[in-house]
């Protein structure tokens, strides 16, 4: 319906649009007119102006369209109004009215524009008023709401305020709690650290207690920790308020755990110790060393474990010793020691060398076990025993380890030395035993049981040796000289000194070279005393016996020869010097005796004995020339005999003394006798020259035969000087 109305409204414009071209034509005409006629005519100006109005101008066009819309709207409004008035009217009437409206619009518009416009304005204003009224009432409502809101807000504000007030204390409390929590955390941390520091974890406790967990490095770490805990906990015990409860508890718990650890170590050690069944060449694992180090804090546990070790080692060493004795090495090589039992030195030496090597090995093993550094010992120097706990343990264990070995060793050595007949072999064995005793004591010390055994058996060996020596001495004492025995040392003495020589060579061979002179002397004194004294007493007793049987037998020379023989044997050895001295003294005194005896002999042989006897026996005042051998005739024959004797070879060398083995001694004795003889001759000469003895021509009496009364001549003949020679 509207479209039809617009179509119907358009025709005026449509009809006017073809007229625009005619209008242009018109204008062109007018321009011609203008050109021709003057354009000053206002009407024409106006006209021109009107005509010149361009309706294509969009502003105008818009204004017109607004206007046109206005009216159409008005129609619509009117139509609506009419429709409102008579809504029940039929459609036919509307179509008629519309038709009328369409036709009259332009005219009415020209007439009522202003009015219409005003009406419209008024209507609009009224509408505004109405609208504002509504708005106003709405605003009132709004105001109410806002007020209400305001009051609510105030209320809320109030509440907020009060809540804030209330919250403040809460916040304070929260802050307090927070700091309290902080403090609690700190304490928790401290407690945790405390627990970590002062207690063992479940695992660690298990490590210490459980039998299923091996003893290993971890175990010892745990032990260290437990130990440290106890150490640290002692600090807790030393507070101002006395021991703290925690400290007491920690110490008691941990100590208990530590003890269990110790027990475990002890069990483990005992078990491991039973494995040490190999011979002397043992190695110690670091774990074992650590275990022993720990156990040293618990001596009673260590003692128990070590007694197991001692038993094991004891049995092992005994077994290996017996194996070495009876079985030898693998496949019998090296051969068993007992195969050489017939050779006492080798047998005993091999046994003792075995023991010595076992000792060295055992000692090294124990030093490793107790982690004792083998001191920087110079090869060959004596071990210096330090007073230390380890040293005590080691000594004790060494002692025990070799305890069982002692009796088979002793038994065998004893058998060997008892079965020896030769004192030399016995002496060699005894010396060997002493040597090993000294050597081993450097390792095991003097107090060791094995040292005791070695002392015992070497004492025993020496005992047997001295028994043999004494038996020999007794045999010697029973010596009977053969009938044709000359003044040379008898065969029994030579045998005896031969044995002595060998014993001496064994002794010198056994010297280590560092003994003092006294030690060397003392080491052989008893042997020397026994053998030499027995020899001397034998000699003198057999000499006495022979002298009784055969008074012409030259006992003195025999004894001197025997003593000299002994002296020759002993003289090269400095340790026998005291015996040499004694022998020399003995020889000296016997030589003096011999010298006087010899003097008696030669003075008889020389024929002066009777004369001298008269001179010496002179008691009365009777002149000597009147007494016995000193009567001038007798005296002359005696002096003649003396002169003869002086020219015999006996003056130079006595046939008797030629039997002395020591010719220097013989010479000395002879000279001494000659000197005495010269003194005797001198005495006779002096007496003869004395006037009171009433010799007529004393010088003639003396000068009848050599040495013609001259002492110097006599000394020259005899080859002796004045006084001592």
């Amino acid at each position, binding site marked *: 319906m509207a479209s039809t109305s617009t179509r119907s409204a358009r025709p005026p414009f449509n009809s006017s649009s073809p007229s625009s071209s005619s209008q242009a034509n018109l204008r062109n005409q007018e321009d011609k007119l203008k050109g021709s006629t003057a354009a000053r005519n206002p009407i024409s100006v106006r006209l021109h102006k009107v005509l010149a109005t361009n309706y294509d101008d969009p502003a105008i066009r818009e204004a017109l369209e607004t206007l046109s819309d206005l009216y159409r709207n008005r129609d619509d409004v009117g139509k609506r109004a009419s429709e409102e008035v008579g809504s029940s009217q039929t459609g036919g009437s509307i179509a008629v009215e519309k038709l009328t409206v369409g036709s009259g619009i332009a005219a009415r518009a020209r007439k009522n524009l202003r009015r219409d416009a005003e009406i419209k304005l008024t209507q609009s204003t009224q509408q505004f008023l109405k609208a504002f009224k509504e708005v106003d009432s709405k605003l009132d409502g709004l105001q109410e709401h806002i007020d209400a809101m305001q009051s609510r807000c105030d209320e809320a504000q109030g509440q907020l305020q009060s809540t804030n007030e209330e919250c403040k204390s809460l916040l304070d409390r929260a802050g307090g709690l927070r700091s309290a929590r902080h403090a609690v955390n700190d304490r928790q941390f401290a407690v945790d650290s405390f627990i970590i520091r002062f207690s063992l974890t479940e695992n660690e406790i298990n490590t210490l207690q459980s039998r299923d967990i*091996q003893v*290993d*490095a*971890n175990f010892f770490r745990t032990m260290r920790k437990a130990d440290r805990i106890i150490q640290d906990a002692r600090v807790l015990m030393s507070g101002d308020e006395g021991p703290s409860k925690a400290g007491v508890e920690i110490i008691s718990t941990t100590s208990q755990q530590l003890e269990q650890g110790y027990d475990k170590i002890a069990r483990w050690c005992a078990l491991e110790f039973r494995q040490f069944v*190999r*011979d002397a*060449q043992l*190695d*110690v*694992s*670091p*774990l074992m*060393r650590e275990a022993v180090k720990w156990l040293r804090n618990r001596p009673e546990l260590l003692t128990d474990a070590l007694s197991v070790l001692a038993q094991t080692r004891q049995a092992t060493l005994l077994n*290996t010793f017996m*194996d*070495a004795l009876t079985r*030898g*090495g*693998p*496949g019998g*090589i*090296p051969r068993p*020691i007992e195969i050489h039992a017939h050779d006492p*030195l*080798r047998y005993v*030496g*091999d046994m*003792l*060398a*075995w023991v*010595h*090597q076992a000792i*060295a*090995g055992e000692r*090294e093993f124990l030093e*490793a076990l107790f982690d004792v550094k*083998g001191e*920087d*010992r*110079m*090869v*060959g120097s004596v071990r210096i025993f330090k007073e230390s706990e380890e040293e005590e343990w080691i000594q004790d264990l060494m002692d025990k380890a070799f305890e069982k070995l002692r009796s088979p060793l002793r038994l065998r050595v004893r058998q060997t030395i008892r079965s020896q007949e030769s004192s030399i072999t016995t002496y060699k064995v005894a010396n*060997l035993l002493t*040597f090993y005793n000294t*050597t081993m004591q450097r*390792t095991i010390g003097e107090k060791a049981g094995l040292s005791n055994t070695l002392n015992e058996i070497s004492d025993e060996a020496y005992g047997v040796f001295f028994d043999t020596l004494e038996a020999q001495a007794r045999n010697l004492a029973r010596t009977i000289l053969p009938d044709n025995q000359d003044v040379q040392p008898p065969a029994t003495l030579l045998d005896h000194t031969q044995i002595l020589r060998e014993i001496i060579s064994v002794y010198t*061979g056994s010297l*280590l*070279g*560092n003994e003092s002179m006294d030690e060397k002397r003392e080491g052989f004194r008893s042997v020397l005393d026994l053998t030499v004294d027995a020899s001397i007493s034998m000699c003198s007793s057999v000499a006495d016996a022979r002298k009784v049987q055969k008074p012409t037998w030259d006992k003195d020379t025999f004894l001197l020869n025997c003593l000299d023989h002994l002296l020759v044997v002993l003289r090269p050895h400095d340790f026998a010097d005291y015996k040499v001295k004694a022998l020399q003294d003995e020889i000296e005194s016997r030589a003096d005796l011999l010298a006087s005896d010899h003097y008696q002999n030669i003075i008889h042989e020389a024929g002066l004995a009777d004369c001298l006897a008269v001179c010496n026996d002179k008691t009365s005042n009777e002149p000597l020339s009147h007494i016995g051998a000193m009567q001038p005739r007798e005296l002359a024959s005696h002096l003649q005999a003396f002169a003869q004797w002086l020219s015999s070879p006996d003056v130079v060398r006595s046939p008797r003394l030629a039997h002395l083995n020591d010719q220097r001694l013989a010479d000395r004795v002879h000279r001494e006798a000659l000197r005495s003889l010269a003194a005797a001759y001198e005495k006779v000469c002096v007496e003869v020259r004395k006037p009171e003895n009433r010799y007529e021509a004393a010088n003639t009496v003396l000068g009848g035969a050599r040495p013609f009364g001259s002492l110097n001549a006599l000394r020259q003949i005899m080859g002796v000087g004045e006084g001592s020679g």
Partner: protein
Amino acid sequence: MSSEDNEGDATELLETYDFLLKFIVIGEAGTGKSCLLHHFTHNRFKDHSQHTIGVEFSSRTIKLGEKRIKLQLWDTAGQERFRSVTRSYYRGAAGAILVYDITNRSSFTNLFRWLEDARALASPHLVTVLVGNKSDREEDREVEWSEASQWASQNGVHFVETSSLSGDNVESPFLLAARAILLSIESGVLDPEKAGSGVSYGDRALRRVNSSSRLSFGSLSGRKKRNPIRLKIKDLVPSPLQGRCC
């Protein structure tokens, strides 16, 4: 078990060893046996030394490849009067260090007697190393290197010259002997389990054997296989330098 072993190895001290070997040091008196040994164990010259009395004992652990070997060393007196004593110590020795003095011909001429003794009394697989000592006194030399070397090869012993004064070469005789013995063990000629062989297992080797018997011999011989090659170069070709240098 295995972890324990590892820990054990980590904290292992120097004292543990794989094998323990017994050595004797022999030779005429005054050839410097004790000094040689002293230098070997103490790493310094022993001054003013006296004659050894009987026997002396010392020990040292050496390292050969991956093996630690403890040597038990028995130093014997060379003097004749101790002969009967020292002979008892030959029993069950695995190695002998036979020492002579290059400046003293008589100490060389008697060598055969010593070797004979040692072979008769020690372990049947005795390894002997001939040592010409006092190589620092070249000007007094009475025994030529070549002569001694020839003697050594004729008698099947190793040979080195040493100086216990300067410390020159003092370790080689001991190392040579130890190597040769290790070879014997590896080839099965020597059994450390048996007493009297002069050789025994140490804790390290034992633990290896005990803890994993499956691996024990494989790993033992597998590791050792490397040694012989090095050995051959060193001890079968004794270069003059090795024996003679200053």
